[in-house]
Structures are given as structure tokens and as C-alpha cells.
């Protein structure tokens, strides 16, 4: 019936109507062979000036960057610009999708010297291991759990605190469907990536209503509201807690509840269409180098490294090191692949819950 080839439509539409809006506009392909292009979030490690300088001096390879603002945009850029990118940062939850569309290549960790120090559980992580092959180099990871106000809240050991009458109007949630559904899944003993009982999850989230004061959507917003005393208990990111203490001097403490926490793992991948795969792999090797990580983490601040050797090189009192304890790894459920329909169902449920909070 009314079917148009989607890719054709996208090309025409994107070019003619809204190149800027769709975000599929990219710099023209590079000319020199000794330049690689990295696709990542802006300001997320790979574009640290000191790291780029050291890499170019050591290898003679120049590094260019292109950025994305959402994971779907990252996939779109890979699909519509074959041959442009040589390294791409992928949330490992998206690896299987990228692999299914032949967007990323398997990597041989043996060819990446610094991969020797990677935590074993990350090297063989189910998110990045597909059909026995490894599709990315684990780079950084973090946890989403609870942050509580030090001095005012103590003894919290469960996500049930989010519905505890003691914290009426003192709770903040992350305005993100995947995260909040995962919290309710942990609380109802279900898989965070494939919960079987969505009704129970919706009811659990709705039971937070009296406690919820606000939902936050950026780290900056969280910091402003927390500093203003708007809430005492919150779903928050591990790395952001470290920054809140380190950079903003906030009285906040990170808690891994007994139900566990939500883990995420970002990996660096080689696009299947790259024409500079060796140089790309060399760049990845530099990125997981403990020396690079320590300078990044102690300088501008970084999530936890997937490389044990890098974490061991951090000063013993480093907040990142204290928060991201290796023993937590076993308590995490990692965000994994979500089929489009399930992602949509998550978003629809969260939208309904937010409307319930508001009325």
C-alpha cells in the first residue's frame, strides 16, 4: 500500500526540509588518510585536549570529532554516513541493535594492549558479546541508584524509601522512562530490561506520588534543586554524586539499595564502514590507558573506568573510586537492548505516570 522506501524518504526529507532539525548533517568526509573521526557525546573524554595532543604526537594520526545528542541520532549518523567515522562511543545497551544493522565490527581485544587490565566481567559482558564475538572495548561505566541528603536522611537501604511517608514531598525522580521503570522493576523483583508485569511497575511508580516533589532532567537542574533544599532523596547517577560532592560541596551520599542498582556500560566501537580501523583501534587503546584515565578523572572528572588497572591508579581517597566499589558490580543489573516496541511501551507508561503525579 502506501509504502515508500524509508531511507529514500529520509534522504529527500532531511535534505530538503530540515537538515538542521534531523541532525543528519555531518562534516564532509575527511581527506587525509592520517586523520580519524570520532563520534561521541561532546565533552565526554575522547575530546580532552591533552589526550588528543599526546595521541597525535605518539602516532602522527590527527583526530577529528563529530558529536551526537541522543542515541538514535548516533545510529542515524552511522547509517547515513558510511565511511566517515572510525571510532564511535556506543552505550553497550545499543550494541546488539548496531550489530544487527551491521554498523559496527567485532574487535579482537588481544590486539588492544591496554585491554589486559579490563575487569573480566566487562570483557565478556553480555551486552557486548554477540555470537561469541566482542563488539566493542568496554570504556567507562556507572550506576543509577539513590542519592540521599547527608545529615538528614539515614538508614535508607531500599527503593521503598521513594514511597515512605517519612519523605513526603522530599523525593526527586530522574525524568527518564528507562531508568524509572528499571527502579520499579528492581523493587518488584523483575528484569529491568524485560519486565513481565508492566501493570505492577506502573502501580509501584504511582505509589511514589505523595513523596515526589519534582522530576529532574539534567545534572545541573538536580544540583540547583538539591542546593535549594527542594528534596532529600533522589534517583541519581553515581558519577554525578561524585561531582556534586567534589565540585559543588553538596551534602550528599550515594546508596546502593538492597534490591541492587541499575548499571550502564559505554564501549568504544569500530564502525563497520571505517577505512582506518587500525588507527581507530590504536586510539581506543589510548582511551583505556590508565594514565589517560587518571588525568581525565582527576582533571575534568570522569565516570568509573572499566579498566581495573586505571581504577587502581586513582588516589585511594578519590571519590570516584570510593563510590564505584568493585563489589557493587555483582549487585548491578545492566541496561540492555530494548526492542523499539518495548522502548515505546516504557515511554508511554512513564508519560502516564507523570500525568498521574500531576493530578
Amino acid at each position: 500500500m502506501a509504502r515508500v522506501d524509508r531511507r529514500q524518504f529520509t534522504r529527500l526529507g532531511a535534505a530538503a526540509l530540515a537538515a538542521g532539525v534531523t541532525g543528519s548533517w555531518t562534516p564532509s568526509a575527511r581527506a587525509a588518510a592520517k586523520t580519524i573521526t570520532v563520534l561521541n557525546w561532546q565533552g565526554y573524554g575522547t575530546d580532552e585536549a591533552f589526550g588528543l595532543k599526546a595521541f597525535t604526537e605518539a602516532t602522527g594520526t590527527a583526530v577529528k570529532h563529530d558529536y551526537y545528542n541522543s542515541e538514535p541520532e548516533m545510529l542515524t549518523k552511522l547509517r547515513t554516513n558510511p565511511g566517515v567515522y572510525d571510532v564511535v562511543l556506543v552505550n553497550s545497551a545499543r550494541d546488539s541493535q548496531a550489530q544487527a544493522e551491521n554498523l559496527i565490527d567485532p574487535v579482537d581485544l588481544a590486539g588492544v594492549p591496554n585491554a589486559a587490565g579490563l575487569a573480566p566481567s566487562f570483557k565478556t559482558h553480555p551486552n557486548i558479546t554477540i555470537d561469541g564475538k566482542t563488539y566493542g572495548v568496554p570504556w567507562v561505566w556507572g550506576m543509577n541508584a539513590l542519592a540521599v541528603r547527608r545529615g538528614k536522611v539515614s538508614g535508607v537501604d531500599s527503593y521503598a524509601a521513594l514511597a515512605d511517608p517519612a519523605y513526603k514531598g522530599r523525593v526527586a525522580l530522574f525524568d527518564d522512562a528507562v531508568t524509572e521503570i528499571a527502579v520499579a522493576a528492581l523493587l518488584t523483583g523483575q528484569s529491568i530490561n524485560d519486565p513481565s508485569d508492566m501493570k505492577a511497575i506502573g502501580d509501584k511508580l504511582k505509589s511514589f506520588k505523595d513523596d515526589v516533589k519534582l522530576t529532574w532532567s539534567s545534572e545541573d537542574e538536580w544540583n540547583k534543586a538539591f542546593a535549594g533544599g527542594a528534596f532529600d532523596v533522589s534517583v541519581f547517577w553515581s558519577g554525578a554524586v561524585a561531582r556534586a560532592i567534589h565540585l559543588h560541596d553538596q551534602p550528599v551520599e550515594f546508596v546502593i539499595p538492597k534490591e541492587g542498582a541499575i548499571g550502564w556500560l559505554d564501549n568504544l566501537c569500530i564502525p563497520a564502514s571505517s577505512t582506518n580501523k587500525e588507527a581507530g583501534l590504536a586510539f581506543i587503546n589510548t582511551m583505556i590507558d590508565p594514565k589517560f584515565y587518571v588525568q581525565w578523572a582527576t582533571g575534568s572528572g570522569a565516570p568509573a573506568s572499566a579498566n581495573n588497572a586505571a581504577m587502581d591508579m586513582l588516589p585511594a581517597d578519590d571519590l570516584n573510586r570510593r563510590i564505584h566499589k568493585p563489589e557493587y558490580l555483582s549487585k548491578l543489573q545492566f541496561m540492555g537492548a530494548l526492542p523499539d516496541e518495548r522502548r515505546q511501551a516504557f515511554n508511554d507508561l512513564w508519560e502516564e505516570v507523570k500525568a498521574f503525579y500531576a493530578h
Partner: protein
Amino acid sequence: MTAAPMSRPDRRRALGTAALLLPAYGWLLVTVFLPLGAMVVFSFLKTTPIGGSKPLVFTTHNYLAFIERPYLVDVAWTSLRLGFWTTLLCALIGLPAALALARATRGRFRQVLFLLTVLPFWTNGLVRTFSWTMLLREGGILDDALHLVWPSAGSIGLLYTFPAIVIGLVHAYLPYMILTCYLAVSSIEDGLIDAARSLGARGPAVFLTVILPLALPGLVSGAILIFVPVIGSFMEPRILGGRIGVTMGTVIEDQFTQAYNWPLGAALSFTMLGVVLVIFALFSSVLRGRLMPAAA
């Protein structure tokens, strides 16, 4: 007068008018109608047509959202209430301000007052909204000021309430009302008011029978300029409303940024556009009788 054939100077003038209008309408055509047209197409798609090689599937399903997701009715009601209160407050504050500016100020003093009026236009919306959070929160500047004069008063924390959102929106949109009312009010001739007074009308009567009817076109155009964007606003509700701040604007924004469901976002936008047009249609048939003589 019957339509005579256009004389040469007339034709030249028509061409001149067309040349003057072309840049504006050309720009509008490219920047408004093309993206809007694309959105109309999107709203009938099953999935966001960006990336992937899946074939396009057309559907009208997205337009059933209000039936399949009954909670959206509550959300839309919140948006309409926000639009109503914001517009009402803007009118109550804006008309007196416009009157004072037009009738009681002169020269440089008036220029300074005008500058203060349009100041909200020159500040970044996000900065403006965040500064309200500092003012409105419990233990914020407003709270402190109250306790300075009345120490025993309870604490007031307006932040994350419905009034907080309205305050932020009134701040953002008040200049539209002042400017449109100013234009209407400044064209009222002094003679009309003198005439009313000489016929024995006192202040309130002059206002109700002379000034208000003549200011009505300004009030109406101000209301339209304010009501429509407020219905779609998402930044102020999100930041100042906290848990309460779920509006059609935030739901639609979520579809574009979080859920990546552009078709549903587009369909919701057009549904709201339809609702707003119906409201204006009802409103205008009520007003038409009064507005026409004043506008003539």
C-alpha cells in the same frame, strides 16, 4: 464604487506592494509551512522516519491518542487552565500599564518605562525561569523578605505549584499585552474622553464606556499572542512546576526528545492546534459584534 480597470500607476503600486511583501511571505513559506507540512506527514506515520531501512507505514492511529490515553485529557485541561490564568493576569496587569504609558507619561520618562517593559524579551528564558526558582522556593528571597516584615508568618514556598508556573509565564508574556494594548489605547483621542466627561461621566464610567471598548482590539490580539504559546509552553512548567508541571507542551516535547516518537508528538500538536482554533472560533463569534465598530 465599481471596480475600474487598474490604471498604470495603480498597477505599479500593486507591484511595489508585492515586492515589499515578498521577503516576509517567502520567508514564512519556507520556515513555517514547509516544516509544518513535514510534520503533518509525520503525524500520519507509524514510526519516526529518521534512519533505519524499515518501510514507511501510514496510519491515523496517532490521532486517537486522546481516546486511548485518557490521562491526556487532564493534561490538556491543565494547559488550557494555564493559558486562561496567564492571559487573564496579563490583561489585568497589562491594560493599566498601557493606559499609564500612553496617557500619563511623556518623553524620556516614557522611553525608560518602555525599556523596562520589554526587558523580559532581552533576557534568556532559561535564566529568567531559573531566577524565579530562587525567588519562589521555600527559604528563598520572597520567603525571607516576608519574614523580615512579618517574622511570625508561616513559610511560603510557591515553587513547584500551579501559581509558580503562572508567575513565570506572566513574566515571559506580559510585554505582548502591554504593547498591543498601548497601540490601541494611544490612538484614543483626548476629545472623546473630554466629551464623555462633559456629558457627566465619572472615571469608572469613562473607562467602561469609552476606554475599554476602544482598547478591546488590543486586548484581543494580546490574548491571542499569549494564549497560543502558553498552551504549548514546556520550559516554565518543567522548571517551576516540579511534579505539577505536566502540560501538553512537556508531553509533546517528551515525544520528540525522549521517546523519539515524532509522529505522536506531531499528532498531539495538531490536535491541540485544533482545540485552540475551536476556542478562538467560539470566542470570535461572541466578540465580533463588539469588535467591529471599534476596529473600524
